[in-house]
């Protein structure tokens, strides 16, 4: 491969250092019809998440007697990538929906709402790498906005290996041309990992380093999430009854 992803002075294509996140801006409560919602601009990645429920399960046979059902839908808008993406759910989107659901599920007190359903819809408006990580982090905020009891927020970030070095918060070019990609999601104040995936190859040593780097990145995302919740609900917190 003759394309260079890292410049001589140790910067990445967009000028970031190895351990630097892209600018992240979360917004809460952007959809009126949803019970909870959030929007993120994560570099050039833009995702809108709406949460509904807990509500009656439909179809009814899906309801579970001891806990609530969680459904997640990850979907990329036809205009989210350079070439038109067919709006029908692809193999990849079905996988990501499952992964997002399983990354968020451990944080939610599902046993408090038996026989009900929580629906999470993540719509990718513009994709530039790390969409699953951005979707998970944003969905956690939308769930919190819906007032659904959770053990902790969930923060997520990906680490990649490009040109032999480990870099935090993978963008599209690094994902496509790099050697490996490892998304990680965690409950930051509990230090519990809820999702870890890996594409490509890493040595044992690199893997350990990647996890460390991703955890550090998650803490930074967590700080941004708390900041977003804080500024959205601050007016309300001034005084009560």
């Amino acid at each position, binding site marked *: 491969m003759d394309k260079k992803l890292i410049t001589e002075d140790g910067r990445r294509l967009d000028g970031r250092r190895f351990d630097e996140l892209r600018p992240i801006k979360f917004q809460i409560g952007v959809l009126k019809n949803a019970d909870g919602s959030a929007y993120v601009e994560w570099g050039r990645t833009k995702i809108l998440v709406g949460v509904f*429920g*807990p509500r009656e399960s439909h179809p009814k046979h899906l309801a579970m007697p001891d806990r609530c059902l969680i459904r997640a839908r990850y979907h990329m808008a036809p205009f989210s990538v350079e070439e038109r993406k067919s709006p029908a759910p692809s193999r990849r989107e079905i996988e990501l929906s499952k992964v997002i659901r399983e990354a968020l599920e451990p944080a939610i007190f599902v046993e408090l709402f038996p026989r009900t359903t929580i629906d999470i819809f993540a719509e990718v408006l513009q994709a530039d790498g790390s969409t699953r990580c951005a979707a998970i982090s944003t969905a956690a905020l939308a769930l*919190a906005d*819906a007032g*659904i009891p959770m053990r*902790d927020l969930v923060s997520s970030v990906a680490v990649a290996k490009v040109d032999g070095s480990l870099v935090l918060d993978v963008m599209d070019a690094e994902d496509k041309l790099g050697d490996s990609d490892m998304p990680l999601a965690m409950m930051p104040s509990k230090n519990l990992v809820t999702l870890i995936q890996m594409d490509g190859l890493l040595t044992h040593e690199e893997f350990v380093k990647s996890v460390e780097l991703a955890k550090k990145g998650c803490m930074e995302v967590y700080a941004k999430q*708390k900041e977003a919740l804080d500024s959205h609900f601050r007016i309300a917190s001034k005084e*009560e*009854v």
Partner: protein
Amino acid sequence: MFKIPINFGTRQLVVPGFLLAEGKYEAGPNVYNEGDKFYSTVIGLAELRNNVVTVIPLRGCYIPSVGDVVIGKVVDVITTAWMLDIRSPWLGVLFAKEHLSKPLNVMKEDARDYLDIGEMIIAKIISFDRTKNPALTTKEQGLGKIQRGTVIEVDPTRVPRIIGKKGSMISMLKKDSGCQIYVGQNGRIWISGKNREDEALVAGAIKKIEAEAHTTGLTDRIHEYLIKNRM
């Protein structure tokens, strides 16, 4: 006994997973503990009262509780019962025997003759334990089908503010507008006045309370609002 001080100021804004306290405390609503560590489960305002750590939620749906009076909307009619949307995760069930004075004769009459889809009902919750849908009754003074007036919706977490300390806000609203106002615990409010204008005035005032729920001197400002907007 060694106690680690609590980790928050009074009525501090906390997020899910926020470590509230460590030590010999008790977990109140919206708080969970792992051993001696107490965490918040929702976005809300943290409080410590008599050694119990609680969080007052800022967002959330209505969770039924036995004895609550709620305003429900009929969404389904089955042979001898009505299913009511009470804005909770579960639909409320109003059995015919909890609404009618005599048993419903299913051979001769239809449950729809009494209550039909879309109608609003003031009802009381008589049983609920999360394994079964909440059961309702209308067989008490002041309960039953809503025949006139306006029903508006507010966030269920704002209901205590609309009622006010010892009902101060609601009695002021009633006195200033001359309307009958009934606040359901699930955030639906029934307003019945002499005319539509009075009802719209109260609805506007309630929306103002909801938006400014957490500010001081609200009762006085709402009083001024009602006087100013009433010609």
